[in-house]
């Protein structure tokens, strides 16, 4: 079978095809296959690997355009997923600067991690000498996010990062902010939430690639949603993102129970819907927008009950 690998020698990009016997690699992991190729056919093929047991995060690569942790992916899984294909395309993680072949530059990611101020600032009642108190439930709440091995697989697939990384960060950075902001020992979650908001928290497009690819089953998208909810609760709700989200909530709970699109546009961007003027006019011409909706749509049947239910939920979960 064939492995077509996207290579880079420091100057130019090119593809190289390696042919291997299926029987030589079918019992191996993807990392095992790369090592096989390097050690038997071409020692100039470069990639990074260390622990080979899915805990150090060194070996993220893409297969057929989707990111995987190579040591954690069995060849049999790939055969099944891609229906016994006899050719695979291997490339480096996307959204990273490639240094050589499948090895990428992690420096920008480390700098992004600094932005959310990792590292606990503990409550004043705790001390270096006595440590802290926390219970198992509080530990269980955050331990999933602590599984992050900084493999970069989520960042590789992130649609927002691909479109424009200047106002966004890798999904794992938001997970890092979440894990310390939601640690019961933390003095002030906002230390970590604020920089997340300031660095693109509301720009996530909800594509769920991060959730889907993470070898540790972490959902950075959920962590982003969690940080957004925390930010909203603490009054960090200025800006287009929060206004947009709030609009859905308002329609659901306070208004009709369903989305009112005219109001959505107004609430999100205020009267300067001039930005959307082109689109609004297009919509009206296409007959899709009923201007009368600005006065509110019909309330859904049973809305009063819905409100009662939500109120009960709020009361029972007062922080």
């Amino acid at each position, binding site marked *: 079978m064939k492995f077509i690998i996207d290579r880079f*020698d*420091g100057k130019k990009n090119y593809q190289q095809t390696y042919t291997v016997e299926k029987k030589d690699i079918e019992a191996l*992991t993807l990392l095992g296959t790369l090592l096989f190729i390097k*050690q*038997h*056919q071409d*020692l*100039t093929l*470069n*990639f*990074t*690997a*260390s*622990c*080979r047991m*899915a*805990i*150090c*995060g*060194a070996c993220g690569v893409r297969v057929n355009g989707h990111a995987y942790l190579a*040591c954690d992916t*069995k060849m049999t899984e790939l055969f099944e997923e891609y229906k016994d294909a006899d050719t695979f395309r291997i490339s480096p993680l996307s959204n990273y600067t490639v*240094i*050589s072949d499948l*090895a990428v*530059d*992690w*420096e920008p990611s*480390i700098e992004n*991690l*600094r932005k959310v*101020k*990792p*590292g*606990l600032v*503990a409550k004043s009642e*705790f*001390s*270096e*000498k*006595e*440590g*802290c*108190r*926390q*219970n*198992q439930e*509080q*530990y269980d709440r*955050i*331990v999933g996010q*602590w*599984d*992050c*091995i*900084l493999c970069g697989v989520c960042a590789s697939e992130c649609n927002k990062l691909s479109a424009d990384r200047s106002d966004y960060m890798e999904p794992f950075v938001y997970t*890092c902010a979440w894990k*310390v902001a939601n*640690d019961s*020992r933390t003095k002030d979650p906002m230390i970590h939430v604020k920089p997340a908001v300031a660095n693109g928290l509301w720009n996530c497009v909800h594509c769920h690639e991060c959730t889907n690819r993470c070898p540790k089953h972490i959902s950075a998208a959920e962590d982003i949603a969690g940080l957004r909810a925390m930010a909203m609760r603490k009054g960090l709700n200025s800006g287009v993102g929060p206004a947009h989200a709030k609009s859905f909530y308002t329609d659901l709970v306070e208004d009709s129970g369903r989305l009112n699109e005219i109001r959505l546009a107004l609430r999100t961007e205020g009267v300067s819907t001039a930005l959307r003027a082109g689109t609004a006019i297009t919509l009206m011409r296409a007959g899709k927008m009923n201007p009368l909706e600005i006065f509110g749509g019909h309330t859904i049947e049973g809305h009063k009950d819905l409100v009662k239910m939500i109120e009960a939920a709020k009361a029972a979960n007062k922080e």
Partner: protein
Amino acid sequence: MSEQFTRREFLQSACITMGALAVSTGGVEQAFAATSTSTPNTSGMPTCDVLIIGSGAAGLRAAVAARKKNPNLSVVVVSKVMPTRSATTMAEGGINGVIDFSEGDSFELHAKDTVKGGDFLVDQDTALKFATYAGAAIHELDYLGMPFSRNAKGEVNKRYAGGASKIRCNFASDKTGHILTHTCLDDALKNGVKFLMDHHMLDLSIENGHCEGVVLRNIRTGDIAPVRAKSVVLATGGYTRVFWNRTSTPYIATGDGAAAVLRAGLVFKDPEMLQFHPTGVCHGGTLITEAARGEGGILLNNLGERFMKRYVPNKMELAPRDIVARSIETEIREGRAFGHDMEAYVLLDVTHLGKEKIMRDLPQIRHIGMLFENMDLVEKPIAIRPTAHYSMGGIHVTSIDTMATPAPGLFAAGEASCVSIHGANRLGGNSLCDATVTGRIAGINAAEYAAKADFGKGKRLNDLTLKWTSHFKEITGSGKGNVNDMYALREEMGAANWYNMGIFRTESKLLALADKHAEFQARYEAIRIPNANPVFNTAYTEYVELGNLLLASRAALMGATARKESRGSHYREDYLKRDDANFLKHSMVTMDESGKMHLDWKDVVVGQFKIEERKY
């Protein structure tokens, strides 16, 4: 290649690292401004006050400690990988440290267990201090933000570990090492630690007995440059990859620090002390954690019997690692195992624990079974055999108070160092606190030293840089070489070391190995790498690492041959008894300019713990 290396070429080759360091340190001049007696930097070489080699827990702890001790110093962590790819992440079981004195535990008892666990090769004053620092470290880590599994009182939860007389192995699920690594990384980022990643330390420069700096290869560009430093902390990890694939450790555990120290004429202590963990998977040597046995797993031979009853009936599978490993190897030798020779194995059975318990308390091992052995250990016993796991030996450090080597300015910490805390055998849970504690001490002292020291002149550093620059060209630029030469040699080295210097050692096997190594070294020097591209040349990195492993092997071989006794992990079938009269000493290996190795001895520091037979 001309002997004359002009200053201009120097600056050019150094410029990328210089740039990186300048960015990191805020400029070469600033580094000088911090010191009280400054000498003008005339060499043009990049400089750094405190340079830490290695980004595992020990390296990261050293960096933070140095930064906190003196924020005016430039502190850079150099790593041949991206930080967090280190062996620390692989540790699972827990981190020892006495924080609960209510059941009769004490620092003394922890020290005593450590001394006995190390088969009395442990320096006893060191052990006591180690235990004291380890106890304090647990609360410190909690306060820094490390999440721990908790007991009903909200305190850090702990479990039993092998060879411990009390329960003091504090843990975070079955991924304590991974969580510790990321706690240390977050703390490092919080404290403004700068990183120079993808940089490989090729050599160490000692001039007039003082450490003057290191030669670094920028793996990304291939540039080889000297870096002058006032203090250097070697936190480069272990050298268990001398057994190549018969080890649980990562591909990067190649003893770079130990080898550099040997080349610099300094001491590599107790190199023959390599720990063999009883339960590694057959395909690739990855570990199945001791906790599997701690939670009730049993070991079976081909007769279906729990063979540990022949060896340690009152501890069975929970006897210390070296004892269990030898028991398994004995079963293999005496024909009661499955398979043959290097492929032989016994079974670890956890099926009786039930799926729920395994999923809750041992999820990682199930994943490992599926990944490496294509089987589900919820349903079937898993094939295992001993695998090399830890290096008790390491860079000789004179005192745990400073973690300094005898060369002023040079420090070592973590698995790379040998104080000695672990002696001839390390207890489970003692390595994470080793890294945590010794890393911090090394960082504090490296910063204190740097605050008062001058930069060296850099002449020897210059020479070493030239040497390595030529080396790269010679090895990779010849246009010759087969892809498999280096890898075949590496596999052979691993097998030869395992067979002749593994769990059971004899004089004849060790002498045979010495001959083999002479051959290996000759072959090694003749190898040429058919990859002239300096950009991210991982084949050259592997070649350098292999050279370091060969050096470490020969040092270990020297120690193993000279130590005519059995102690801890070092087991001589021709000298079955422990011989305190002659060998209550550390083996101290050095290498001279011609490459010949020498062995000296240093008495173990004995204290309050009586030297007695090691029985469990």
